[in-house]
C-alpha cells in the first residue's frame, strides 16, 4: 500500500472520565486511550458500510483488528506506529474537508488515533491535522 494522505483526529476509548466514560473498548474490544492504537474506516465490511470513504472518492484497504499502520504528522514529520482497535472515522460525514498547516494540507478523514498515539505526534488541542498513513 502506497502512503495515503488525508486528515487525522483522535478519539477516546476504554475506561475514561467525562463524556468519554461511555466509550467502551471499540469494535475490536481492545481499545484503550493510553495505548498506541487507532480506528480505521475499513476494519470490516460492516464498518465500511458506516464510514463509506468511497463516497469521498477514497479506496482504503480492508485491514482487521491488530493490523499495524504508521501515521506521519505532515506538519512536523513525526511518525507513530499503531494497531487497529476500532472502526472509524466516519469519513463520509466530512467529504472534501481539508486541514492545513502552512502549504501542507490533507483532505478527508482517514484515521483516528488514541490520545496516547495522537499526543506523541501532535497536540491534542489541535484536534485535526494533515497526515499520511502507510504500512511500513
Amino acid at each position, binding site marked *: 500500500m502506497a502512503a495515503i494522505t488525508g486528515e487525522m*483526529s*483522535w*478519539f*477516546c476509548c*476504554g*475506561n*475514561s*472520565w*467525562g*463524556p*468519554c*466514560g*461511555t466509550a467502551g473498548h471499540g469494535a475490536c474490544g*481492545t481499545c*484503550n*486511550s*493510553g*495505548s*498506541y*492504537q487507532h480506528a480505521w474506516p475499513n476494519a470490516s465490511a460492516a464498518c465500511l458500510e458506516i464510514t463509506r470513504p468511497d463516497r469521498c472518492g477514497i479506496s482504503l484497504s480492508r485491514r482487521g483488528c*491488530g493490523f*499495524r499502520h504508521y501515521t506521519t*504528522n505532515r506538519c*512536523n514529520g*513525526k*511518525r*507513530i*506506529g*499503531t*494497531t487497529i*482497535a476500532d472502526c472509524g*472515522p*466516519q469519513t463520509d*460525514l*466530512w*467529504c*472534501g*474537508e*481539508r*486541514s*492545513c498547516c502552512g502549504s501542507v*494540507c490533507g483532505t478527508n478523514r482517514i484515521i483516528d488515533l488514541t*490520545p*496516547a*498515539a495522537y*499526543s*506523541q*505526534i*501532535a*497536540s*491534542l*488541542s489541535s*484536534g*485535526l491535522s494533515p497526515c499520511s498513513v502507510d504500512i511500513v
Partner: protein
Amino acid sequence: MTETIDRRRLLTSAVVGGASLVGATALGSLAPEAAFGAPDQAVEPGAPDPNFAEGRITGISAGMLFVTGSDMALWRIRITGGTSIWKLRPTTFDTVAVGDGLYARGLRLDDGTLAADSVWVNIVNLHAHIAAIGRNVLHLDHKGRRVVGHLVPGTSAARYNNTPAVSDMSMLRVGKHVQVIGAWVPDTNEVEIATVYASA
C-alpha cells in the same frame, strides 16, 4: 536512548532541586511541539505508553498532581516550569483543580513520577449532532446523550471545512454533524467549546 537518559537526568535534577525549566534547554525545547515524537518509537504498536497518563486529579501539592487513572492506576505527575498546560486554552498551573480530568505526556522518572511536558486538562473531542442552538450555547447529541456546549466569547472558534478558525458561529445549523474540542465541566454534561469543526 542517550538523549532520553540525559533528559530524564535533567528533569529529575530540576524537580528535585526546585529549579524552573523554561523554554529551550541544551537538550532542545521542552515545548510540546518539540516533545512530540521521539526519533525512535520505544513502545510497540498496540501497547500502552508508560509516558502517557490519563485520569482524574485527586490531589495537588507542591507542583505535583496526584491522579487516579480510569483503570485505577495511580499517577504522580510533576509539573515543571517547562510543562505546557491546556485547559480550554493554554493556561497556568493555578487553574488546575482537584476533580479535573486530564491527559498528560512526559517522561517517567526513576522515582515513578511522570515529569510532564504537556497536560491537557478536561479536554474532550466530541463527535456529535447539533440538536438545538441557543444564545452562546449548542445542545449536542453525543452517542445518544445530551451534552450542553457553551460558547465562550473571545475563545470559542469555528472551522467550516477548510476555512481558518473564526469566531462567527452563524453557519452552524441544527442537525449538522460537528466535532468539538472543548473542556469538560467536571461531573456535569456540559463542556466549554474551544473549537467546533463543521462541514460547510
